[in-house]
């Protein structure tokens, strides 16, 4: 069975441009997470979904970041407009339930120039 799939793997954009990341979680996983990881740091939670509901988006910078999980399966994370400081790896993870292990995708490495 395929794991968590993310695309694109790499993205380079100019500042002030929009960008979107896509995540397809493991089939049947109700919980979906988006994380941001800076170089040499641990992943930092941006948003958590339980099915299609965003149950915790307290760490999402809502002035420029948005996310959706239509039909409780795939999810997209968008940044508009991107800033230089947004350069990082964006990770998606999914788990069967809230208190079970989360499996991560390969991540999208974003570079804002």
């Amino acid at each position, binding site marked *: 069975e395929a794991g968590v799939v993310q695309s694109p793997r790499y993205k380079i954009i100019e500042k002030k441009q929009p960008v979107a990341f896509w995540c397809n979680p493991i089939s049947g996983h109700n919980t979906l997470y988006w994380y941001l990881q800076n170089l040499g740091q641990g992943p930092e939670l941006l948003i958590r979904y339980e099915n299609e509901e965003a149950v915790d988006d307290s760490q999402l910078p809502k002035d420029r970041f948005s996310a959706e999980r239509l039909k409780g399966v795939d999810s997209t994370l968008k940044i508009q407009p991107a800033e230089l400081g947004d350069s990082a790896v964006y990770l998606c993870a999914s788990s069967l339930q809230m*208190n079970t292990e989360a499996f991560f995708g390969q991540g999208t490495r974003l570079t804002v120039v």
Partner: protein
Amino acid sequence: GESVGLHLPTLSVQEGDNSIINCAYSNSASDYFIWYKQESGKGPQFIIDIRSNMDKRQGQRVTVLLNKTVKHLSLQIAATQPGDSAVYFCAEKNGGSQGNLIFGKGTKLSVKP
């Protein structure tokens, strides 16, 4: 606030030796803990987990120990191999309405042949 941290940012061991990676957490309400391994350019990979009603759990060549009294978690890797070289993160979850997976900063393990 919640925090998960690691005592040692880097660890260098000889191939064949045992490795011990330590982690401190501050949220006494956390009831589920996970160790992840992250290789360069990849997403975190699940290694082993433990719930707060246990103090030890063993996997293949890995053992996780949980000391709730001092809020300490450790990962022991037996007979460390070059393929174990990576950054290791501990992560904690608290249950109930939160259930977010919070990561520490990570320990880089280098295995010398």
